[in-house]
């Protein structure tokens, strides 16, 4: 059972190796990379390719590690006790299972996605050390230790907003999705737009990679932005010739709003385009 990428997701050799290593050795896999390089998508595609159920845990700044295990709903229980509901006798009715509990109790091997772990408090990863290491945790209310039936494949993504603690990193495998080169990008685009005109793709990629080379951009356009832009180009039926007009009077690619998301970047780019135009005789 090896992950090789799927019909909708192009995985490079190093990425598949990292995923397979994590699957074989049952370690969590930490994925980093520029925004828009398909980090979150990876978990979905791995789950699909390996035919395993996927449990997703999206982290926010207020997320606590405990929420991934379980939560004790004390207020409902107190309320029920007032109303004389017989359910109140059994505390397990008020234990709300978190993502990790569900995955641990799952009858088949599963994939757990812990998305954007860097959004949480700095202590968050430390609170999950034992859970990720031993794949078990103790539920105090039930006096019971929840142990994983099958060690799930845990995929963790990070956008580098916070530094993760060393003890946590030691337990993970790590892969940095680097920005795809032109060849890989062509494969990625081919997966998304099987009928794209070859001409248009060539020109679009040229413009795209040129744009990434512009110095001083705050946010370089990424794969997902390229895909969006291509969608727009197709929808508007822009001919490849329009993109080729690099030296001509309009050096700004059509629909560039899909590629540049930052006002300052657009200004910078327009300025550069203007200067380039003035240099023309």
């Amino acid at each position, binding site marked *: 059972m090896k992950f090789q990428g799927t019909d909708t997701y192009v995985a*490079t*050799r*190093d990425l598949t*190796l*990292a995923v*397979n*290593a994590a699957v*074989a*050795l049952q*370690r969590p896999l*930490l994925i*980093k990379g520029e925004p828009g390089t398909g980090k979150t998508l990876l978990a979905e595609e791995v789950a699909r390719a390996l035919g395993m159920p996927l449990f997703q845990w999206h982290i926010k700044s207020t997320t606590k590690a405990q929420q991934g295990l379980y939560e004790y709903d*004390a*207020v409902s229980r*107190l*309320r029920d*006790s*007032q109303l004389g509901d017989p359910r109140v006798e059994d505390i397990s009715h008020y234990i709300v299972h978190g993502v990790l509990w569900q995955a641990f109790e799952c009858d088949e091997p599963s994939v757990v996605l812990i998305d954007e772990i860097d959004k949480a408090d*700095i202590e968050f990863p430390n609170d999950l050390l034992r859970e990720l290491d031993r794949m078990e945790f103790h539920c105090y209310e039930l006096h019971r230790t929840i142990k994983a039936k099958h060690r799930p494949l845990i995929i963790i993504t990070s956008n*580098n*907003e*916070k*530094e993760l603690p*060393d003890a946590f*990193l*030691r*337990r*993970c*495998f*790590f*892969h*940095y999705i*680097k920005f795809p*080169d032109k*060849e*890989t990008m062509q*494969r990625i685009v081919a997966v998304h737009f099987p009928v794209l005109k070859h001409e248009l793709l060539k020109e679009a990629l040229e413009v795209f990679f040129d744009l990434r080379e512009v110095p001083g951009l705050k946010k370089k356009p990424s794969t997902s932005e390229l895909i969006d832009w291509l969608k727009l180009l197709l929808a508007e039926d822009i001919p490849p010739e329009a993109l080729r007009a690099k030296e001509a009077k309009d050096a700004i690619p059509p629909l560039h709003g899909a590629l540049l998301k930052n006002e300052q970047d657009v200004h910078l780019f327009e300025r550069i385009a203007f200067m380039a135009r003035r240099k023309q005789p």
Partner: protein
Amino acid sequence: MLVDFFLHLKARQLPVSTNELLALLEALEARLVSASLDDFYLLSRTILVKDEALYDRFDRAFGEYFRGIEALPGFAPEVPEEWLELAARKHLSEADRLKLQKLSYEKIFEQLKERLAEQKERHSGGSKWIGTAGTSPYGHGGYNPEGVRIGGESVGNRTAIKVWDQREFRNLDDSVDLGIRNIKVALRRLRRFARKGAATELDLDGTIAGTARNGGWLDLHLRPERHNAVKVLLFLDIGGSMDDHIQACEELFSAARAEFKHLEHFYFHNCVYEGVWKDNRRRHGEKLSTWDVIHTYGPDYKLVFVGDASMSPYEIARPGGSVEHWNEEAGAVWLERLLATWPHAAWLNPLAEAHWGYTPSIQMIEQLLGKRMFPLTIDGLERAMRSLSK
């Protein structure tokens, strides 16, 4: 096995731990990769390196180790022969293998080992060295029917020596740079938690006590969540000699923005006088009186200046010394006023500490702040935060 390699990485200051070495060995035992050195490189990087900033250092260390192989006791432990054999079987067609009998496996691998040891740099073309597109029996994309492919078949895959020689992650090494996340970690020292704001968390003890007191009727008690309660006033020097340090200041600013709930920032030029401003584009139109700032924020705020403090001494010491306008009172008077209002203060200086002694104005300001000037580096930030939280 691989202990030398492990120690070599350690010596190159890669933070690798014994656990990770064991994981790598486990992975090798599980036959996760076949004989290629290229796969071994990817696998060891996945398992041993946990930060893309360290990829470059790892590439260099890996390159050094596998190039300087002749000095080490045997190449075999790194890429065992049976793997090479396995890979060769897998990649060679039946016809190729017949031809290959001319050249026994032993002989091929013997040569391969020798050449790996001899080879000093990455190689492309040619007929002897391991590399791309050559006619040597070793390497990838070559024409020799007896070739042993080093590296896989996939498009994105590069040959063994080449990948780490490219050092693609060169500019991510952060041993010199001061990144936003480092700044945040340093700023975290300032955290002080307090319960404030809307009550959203159930206070279980309070609820139980309240319910008991109520004769069994439910009495819910809520309490506010814990928040970082530190308040910070940030005064940023802008323009002139500070132009060289814009990047560092931007990073510091955005890190501080995310870290503190109560953060107020003001700009000044060279030294603080009677007016500061909040938006640098409208600095002349919308000047705030420094007195108003002093009266607005309580003494529990912590005061942080960011500036290179490089100016003419007159700008600090004399009335009318400012380069921009006529100031009635000297900069030093204003600085002292601010320091009297907010006794917890620090000055962060983007100039290297070693150069401070050569500029009189830096020494004057350092003195005014009672030696609480720190360089704008990770270490300096740590020291500043420690001094602020005293």
